[in-house]
């Protein structure tokens, strides 16, 4: 591990795209209180594909929700490109999502009434801009759907839909893309294609991606794997290959 990635208690590292300090989330109160996340410090530098793994209830989803500003922490702070996510109101959050965030969901969540390319362009249009046609063409090319650009989601396979979702997440050139079990609903062939594309975005555009998964094979596409257990970071290291991930997870 490089020195630069060591967390400092005061704030995020200067080069971190996403960071958090003392991030904690407690559900319920008193006796029944559960610490889903028990104070986590992390920094995510640009151009890395990070996988957050862990068993059910380990807090991996909670961590992602807090980093992405979808949920409010009970303690601690999170930043995206230096903006304190945990302090934003709804308006600020909307602005942040438009400029800095991309999402990929387990259930694709495309707008069924829009075509593939319209779905991809949607975040840009919602923000009040028009998408650059060259960029749109490049995205379609990248996800391999140029010939299916006018199809609606119902006319696409699950893998194709998720590829549209990836292109949509990248469309506004966000600082970071959060992916929540992006292959949870796909067969292995489609999964591989989707993960190759994500990997390609990281390598090709220096895109930062944070991905939550419980599948070691999926995690093996990442540069770095963070293993969560009982709401704390149990392991955090660069990985190379599926075996290493499995070993890492098994150690816990």
């Amino acid at each position, binding site marked *: 591990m490089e020195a630069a990635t060591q967390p400092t208690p005061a704030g995020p590292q200067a080069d971190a795209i996403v960071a958090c300090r003392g991030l904690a989330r407690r559900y319920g109160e008193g006796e029944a209180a559960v610490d889903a996340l028990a104070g986590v410090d992390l920094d995510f530098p640009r151009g890395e594909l990070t996988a957050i793994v862990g068993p059910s209830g380990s807090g991996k989803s909670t961590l992602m929700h807090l980093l992405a500003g979808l949920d409010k922490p009970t303690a601690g702070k999170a930043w995206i490109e230096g903006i304190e996510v945990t302090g934003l109101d709804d308006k600020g959050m*909307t602005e942040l999502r438009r400029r800095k965030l991309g999402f990929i969901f*387990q259930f694709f*969540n495309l707008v069924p009434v*829009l075509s593939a390319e319209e779905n991809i362009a949607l975040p840009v249009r*919602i923000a009040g801009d028009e998408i650059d046609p060259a960029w749109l063409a490049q995205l379609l090319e990248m996800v391999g759907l140029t010939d299916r650009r006018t199809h609606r989601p119902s006319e696409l396979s699950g893998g194709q839909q998720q590829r549209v979702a990836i292109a949509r997440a990248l469309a506004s050139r966000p600082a970071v893309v959060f992916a929540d079990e992006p292959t949870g609903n796909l067969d292995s062939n489609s999964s591989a294609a989707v993960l190759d594309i994500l990997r390609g975005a990281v390598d090709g555009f220096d895109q930062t991606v944070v991905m939550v998964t419980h599948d070691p094979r999926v995690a093996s596409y990442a540069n770095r794997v963070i293993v969560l257990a009982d709401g704390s970071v149990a392991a955090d290291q660069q990985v190379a290959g599926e075996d290493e991930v499995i070993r890492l997870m098994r150690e816990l």
Partner: protein
Amino acid sequence: MLRLALRGLATHKLRGSLTALAILLGVAMVAGTLMLSDSVNRSFDDIFSEANAGIDVSVRAKQEIDAGFDLPESGVALPESLLPEVEAVDGVKQVSGSIGDATTIAILDENGERIGPPQGGPPHIATSVEPEPFTPYTYIEGGPPAADDQVSIDSFTAEEEGYELGQSVPITGAEGVRDYELVGISRFGSGVPLGGASLVEFTLPEAQRITAKQGEFDQIAAEADDGVSPDELRDRIKAALPPKLVEVRTGDEIATEDSQDIKDGFSFLTILLLVFAGITVFVGGFLIFNTFSITVAQRTREFGMLRTIGASSRQVLSAVIVEALAIGLLASIVGIGAGAGFVKVLLAIFGLLGFELPQSGLPLEPRTVVIALAVGMLSTLLSAAIPAVRATRVSPLEALREDGGKPAEAGSRRRSIIATVLSVVGIALILLGLFGGSDFGAALGTMGLGLVLLFFGIAALGGKAVAPFAAGIGRPIQRLRPVTGQLARENTLRNPARTATTSSALMIGAALVVFVLMLGSALTKSVGEALDKTFTGDVAIFNVDGFSPISARIAPGVGDLEGVQSASPLAAAGGHVEGTPEGEDQLIYGWDAATLTDAAELDWVDGSDATLADLGDDGAIVESKWAEDNDVAVGDTISVLTPSGETVGAEVKGSVRDRVSLLVESVALPIATLRDDFVTRQDALVLVSFDEGADFDTVRTEVDDLLATDFPQAEASSQQQLKDDNKEAIQGAVFLIYVLLTMAVILSLVGVVNTLVLTVLERKRELGMLRAIGASKRQVRQMVRYESVITAMIGAVIGTAIGIGIGLAAITALADEGLVLSIPFAGLIAVLILSALAGVVAGIWPARRASRVEVMEALQYE
């Protein structure tokens, strides 16, 4: 299964409560109308049985022609000479002759204007003092008038006007204005307001004078000797009097009949209210149908699961039906209670118009409860039937499907065929009603049924029509807001059948509004054009209320004014031309042949103005269309039955076309014939023409002054004023219909709210995703609001088209009655704009709910 259905109801309060609201509003209107009608009927019974309590036998003049909406009250009365004849009958203890006249007098305020609403309103009734036991009055203060310049007035009027004993009250009648001293404040009968009517009690001679019935009575009442029953006395009196002249009845019969007359008049209101209650129930049905359709679709997985664990399709069916019935029952019960509130609102509206409806509490008859429950539960059941059957078609497999199962949509062939057949049959029935030539009531019924079928047909076909309409309406919105506009438009197309049913509810309201608008506009234009063509004089004098007669002394008075060329009186009375269908009486006009053409231009079909000079005492002019329909030709001799039962013969000397019956509806006779033989003591109107070269304003002022001083119940109007008054009157009627349609329109908007709220629930995950990719709350609200607007506008546009269609058909059908087409562009545009605004309003709440959906919901599995 029952438990499950009820549990389902308890957990889905939202969909339950909106459905319930739909049922509740309709039931409230039905129950309220029935309660009001019962209450009013009971009050009238009470009023008249008490007012007539002291009368054993009543003698009145026989009325051959029934007065009604279209025929004036007749002036036929009894000669005073009958009084001793009645008195002489064996068994008569005492008699009393009296006046009771609702068409002649007007109580005036200090400015000389008729009290009460400016456009007339309830009648002012002249009555005469009667001894005990005949008098219907008891006195709260003072007593009956003892001198000719004294009156007593009913307490409701006195309170309304702030009268105090001893003050002076100006009253005008057939002979001009007089001031009277108020000496009594009275109660009539059981002392509940008589529909807002004002009752004035004069001495007998004064009552006769002010109603131009010198030497006459409206009624002779008799009290029986002890031991003589009213029935017996009635038969004896009947035998003693000329049967052609009189109607002899007991006090009880009179009470029943008087009460029945008013109740019959009132039953029109009851029917009108029930028709609009029916429309509301009908619209509510669409809402219920839609709610159940949507929830059945959303619960596909639940039903599939039930089937996998062994539920039969019958059990699934009964689960949905039981849910519907439970909602129907609950909502109907609440609706009956809300009916009382509806009555309050109605009474408030009538009160504003100056009509005080008599009431004795709000009686809840068992019949009302039964009808209200039946309406509520049946409408719910019928509306839920199709969705319930659809629920049974859910296969167990669908429980396992990931996507909850989308309903198989819009265009099954069978559905299209049925819908087309319904629409075609509906249109055919509407046309049959319009052109079939059957009588008014049957024609309305046929048209109504046709409309219902057409609405069903279009609602079912609507799924196919949604796409082009959504495109047309959504395009401008999309230009304004490219992203949210496009999403809104596309969303309306997701489930076209659902959008179609939702907008159909609005379509019904819009169609009826536009239809009424079209008719009103055509009517205004027709009368306006007819006035332009027919009335060539300077002013016309009518009663301020627009329909009551005016003093016969106005015409000679105005005629004598300087600068007035002539004042031509027209009289009107009911009559029956021999050979025309039984029970169909005519409005007979009386013309002053010498002066009529000074102020009017006749559209001669056969004859010329010279024919008029030749009219003589026994000539008649007929309306050409009426004559043609009734096989009457120039040269024929016709016999006309008068209200008093006499027959007048006349030779038809000419025919004129008068499309809107301004001067002649069927037959016009010399005015002297009407005054003598039809006993018209007053004139219907006076047409005035000024001398050539006279200054209009100067002469007009003279006429106005004369009327204001002596005949304040009459007013002079120029042609333009007549047109404006007519327009106002039509607008008033149109407005009343709009008020009655309000409930249905509100309900159809609730339908839009309902569909959108359920849709928002359905699309939670998608909404969360939109927020995740950067949509602001505002954008989400916009999207839902535009969807609401597009849905509303689809209904408004189709409804407007239907309204224009049946409006055109109706105007064509009524062309013979003088209707000419006039497209109310401003009104139509207003309907569309208001619909769009209504769409915005209906979208507010669903939009707010949608914008509250959090991004988290897009991430969650369920």
